[in-house]
């Protein structure tokens, strides 16, 4: 027995020493935390923007624990879109109990794997994200496509949201006749979402920002034209996203995207940063092979595949760990159903100089059917400023007119202003890099009452919406 014990002891010591003498640790272990990924036989990442299904042949969330993959939850026909709570103990996800159910939002407690339904609705609810202040945001299918909705996440009250689109405490955050999907909550509390460009009418995926009360919608950057989607903010503050099949980023100093040089491959969706500053990406070598989860240290020439599965795309990697809580946005919305818009100098634009002097600004809004409705015009001052009252929570767009009523510039796409929001625009599509000049706009020296453009000019003036609106 003594000899056997001695042999066993030596064997144990050798077993312990071997990995310390040159064997690299498993990359999954290197991450130092469990992972959750979505596995799907077919992945059409942008299909939902066009009203389709990202996972037409289903999807399943996998938990990668101790180097092994297993279903995160059981008893579901499909699961996807995991988001780990800030304390690392709960997971929001979209799931279907049966094939014929709509996607709904559920929450899993990792400690005991108990699952509760967070919302119940007749239509699909997907891509949930936790917000600070005990709230959540998700994409809810409506008659016009998916819209961002927000609500208390139920942690405090532990109740199930019934019929969220009509229920109490539900705040729609997007007001478009097109789809929008949340992709990340930034450190500053704003929600990064993807939708088509031009917003409200276009089909090229683009990344936008909105505060957690639906106010302040804008493009993240205005170098449009690239297919951008699936963004996530990393510790440096950069937002890393998929551009086409490559990775690119927005950085604080630059007004345009910056390409990221990566090892060869096609990328899909959001990346996740590990505590070591490495990135977990969903990538594949060729269009015919499935996506794998790879670990990459930015700037290096190689990636390590850490999870793969033949015939399955592995997507949306999420680290199961505590993370920094984003800043809560304190809503300053007034209790109005209208909004005020002050343009400081409508002549300013990234699109170049106007070919004439703007005399008036015209507002159009979309009616419930998505038809453009003329809401009237307001004067533009000599310094390019105008001040108007617009309907809140409706798609609107502006056009600048010369003295003869000829359109000098038409807003590309649509935007909305929340009811009770007071919004300032530096110009018309000046981009987030442009700050305001410190002067009182001429319109405010003339009047502090905005021109009321909250009502349609005349009954029956509806006309079919024209796409793009250039």
């Amino acid at each position, binding site marked *: 027995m003594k000899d056997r014990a001695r042999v066993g002891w030596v064997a144990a010591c050798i077993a*312990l020493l071997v990995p310390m003498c040159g064997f690299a640790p498993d990359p999954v272990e290197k991450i130092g935390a469990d992972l959750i990924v979505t596995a799907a036989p077919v992945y059409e990442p942008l299909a939902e923007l066009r009203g389709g299904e990202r996972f037409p042949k289903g999807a399943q969330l996998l938990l990668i624990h*101790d*180097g*092994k993959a297993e279903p995160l939850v059981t008893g579901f026909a499909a699961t996807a879109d995991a988001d780990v709570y800030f304390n690392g103990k709960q997971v929001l996800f979209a799931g279907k109990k049966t094939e014929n159910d709509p996607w709904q939002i559920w929450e899993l407690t990792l400690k005991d794997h108990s699952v509760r339904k967070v919302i119940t609705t007749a239509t699909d609810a997907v891509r949930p994200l936790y917000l600070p202040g005990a709230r959540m945001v998700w994409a809810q299918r409506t008659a016009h496509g998916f819209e961002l909705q927000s609500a208390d996440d139920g942690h405090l009250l532990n109740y199930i949201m019934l019929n969220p689109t009509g229920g109490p405490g539900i705040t729609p955050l997007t007001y478009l006749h097109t789809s929008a999907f949340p992709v990340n909550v930034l450190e500053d509390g704003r929600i990064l979402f993807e939708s088509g460009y031009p917003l409200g009418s276009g089909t090229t995926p683009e990344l936008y920002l909105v505060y957690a009360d639906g106010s302040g919608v804008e493009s993240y950057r205005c170098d449009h034209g690239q297919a951008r989607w699936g963004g996530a903010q990393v510790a440096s503050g950069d937002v890393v996203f998929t551009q086409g099949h490559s990775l690119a980023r927005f950085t604080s100093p630059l007004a345009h995207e910056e390409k990221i040089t990566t090892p060869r491959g096609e990328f899909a969706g959001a990346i996740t940063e590990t505590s070591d500053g490495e990135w977990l990406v969903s990538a594949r070598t060729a269009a015919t092979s499935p996506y794998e989860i790879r670990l990459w240290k930015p700037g290096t020439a190689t990636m390590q595949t850490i999870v793969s599965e033949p015939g399955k795309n592995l997507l949306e990697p999420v680290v199961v760990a505590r993370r920094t809580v984003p800043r809560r946005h304190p809503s300053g919305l007034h209790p109005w159903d209208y909004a005020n818009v002050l343009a400081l100098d409508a002549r300013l634009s990234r699109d170049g100089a106007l070919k004439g002097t703007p005399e008036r600004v015209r507002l159009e809004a979309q009616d419930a059917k998505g038809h453009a409705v003329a809401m009237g015009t307001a004067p533009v001052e000599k310094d390019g400023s105008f001040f108007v009252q617009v309907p809140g929570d409706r798609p609107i767009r502006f056009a600048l007119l010369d003295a003869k009523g000829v359109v000098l510039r038409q807003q590309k796409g649509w935007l909305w202003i929340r009811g009770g929001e007071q919004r300032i625009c530096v110009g018309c599509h000046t981009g987030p890099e442009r700050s305001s000049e*410190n002067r009182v706009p001429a319109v*405010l020296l003339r009047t502090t009452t905005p021109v009321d453009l909250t009502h349609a000019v005349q009954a029956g003036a509806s006309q079919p919406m024209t796409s793009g609106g250039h």
Partner: protein
Amino acid sequence: MMRQTQVRLRAGIAGGLLSTAAVLFGVALWTGGPARAVMTGRTGEVLTYASPEELVLSTDGAKLFVLCQQSDEVRVLNAATYAEEKKIPVGHLPRGFSLSVDGARLFVTNTWDDTISVIDTKALSVVATWPVGAEPSSVVEDRAGKHLFVANRISSDVAVLNAQTGQEEKRLSAGRGASYITPSPDGSRLYVTHVYPNPTAFRTAPESEVTVIDAARAVVVDRIALRSIAGVFHVAVSADGRLAAVAELHPKNLVPLAHLEHGGAFEDTLTLFGADVGPKPVEVPLDELERYAARPFGVTITPDKSRMYVTSGGSQMLTVIDVPRLLRYAHLHPQPFVYDLSASANYVITRVAVGRDPRGVLLSHDGRTLLVANRLDDTISVIDTRSNKVASTVTLSGPKQISVLRHGEQTFYSAAQSFQGQIGCANCHIDSTFDGLNWDLEPDGFGRGIVDNRLLEDVKGTDPYKWNGGNPNLPTECGPRTERYFWRAENYDDLTLADLVTYIRSMPPRPNRWKLPGYELTAAEERGKEIFERKVDKFGNPIPEKNRCVYCHSGLKGTSQKSFDVGTKKPTDDSGLLDTPQLTNIALTAPYLHDGSAATLEEIWTIYNSEDKHGRTNDLTKDELNDLIEYLRTR
């Protein structure tokens, strides 16, 4: 499906054993429970911290002098080891210091004593204390050793003293709140900046200046206009004298403050001037699209003019600039590009995190080391200029605990709480005072409810707050109101808010320079006091009680803490009912009235009191009105 899953464990078993070994190793080391972070206690005591504000090297480079604002000292450190060698007591709240040309004397301005301490740099002791003007903030000796130039913040001028006796010979008019003087490398020119904007017409952009003094003749030879700037701090001049950079604030007070993104409240900028720049100064942004260099203060340029360093007090960081690229960008791009937040990407090399409220910067004589005085954590960041990294952090001796007041002050001077770190309390309350601006806040409506920014000193016991008296107390003012309408981001936790409020309540008023030493009044002030307290007008008619000055402006601080309509309502106001402001140090706080429409105290009554609702004053002669104002200045 799981059988098909291939989780690639290149060293799976080994990895597991490694983990086991690591756990065993950890258990072996863990002898006394979990490791505890070293924490400083939070104390309610009033502790005296060093609060380093400025740095100067001795001529031979052996000694580092550190101006310690709160402990009223100059500390002497070994410049090689940073060991503290001596503490030299000076006057109260020193703000600026500089060496004499021969390096034998160190001059220190004591802002609350209105004195200059003269330190013998060999004996390391104060050898003279000279009385000077009101709130002396910076001092420079001319190259000939003939004159000392002292910037006086309150009197907004530069006093010219005999450098040997301290006797004042004359004053030169400078910008409002004159505070910082920088000599050109050859000493022929002095560049003077000021922290409050010069007077401009109501609701027009603020203006500031760099006052240029011919040091030999002791005369002002130029005033370089800084358009739209309010809050100007240090100037740096390159060794060849061809480039100067001014650290400054570019407020957006005339635009409704509806949101912070895109530089909505402030930009942080430099103005460049000099032969390298061309005939006109150029303003360049320091900020980025989502990150701000809040409250630029100290600036310096390397001798080879390759780099420029700027401290940002609110952002706790140092910005490193490539000077050739900066100049190239400035030449290639038409003005103004200060509104392009992406411009800085063309010349900013990096941002270096330093301590709380970084102020003065100092390059070592060989240019290899940059020192930053971190005022609110009593440290000096030692930065390797080749790597642009903090090589070490020197901690000055003093309390290790963070007191409530200290924590409150740290919070006050930080921009971290606001959306994207753009602004902090100290943006509008410069050095805990005011900014001389009127602002268009969003809740009242765009262009409506324009409000003058009020002085914070002695604010305790003057509640309610806001000009409409809408905030009952400071926790409301600094808490939910500030969160929603200023920071536009999640506000302080309760403890931090309590500490901030405690700090604000603790702010004492600066000494009133219009008061005589024994607080007796001059004859004119006595006459003014009688007018202030009178019950009948000059025609013998009784003045209704509510129309007497002393009725609303009652009590020690000159406020009844109630609201009245004194006939100053403007078309842009919703109500004429306004909170009665305190009179503490009112002489300093122009412009006046709730919206800042009165440029002077006189204008309150000569322009804005035609109906005698703001006190009965239309029976007064100009001399009598002057008497009243003389008295008010003593409050």
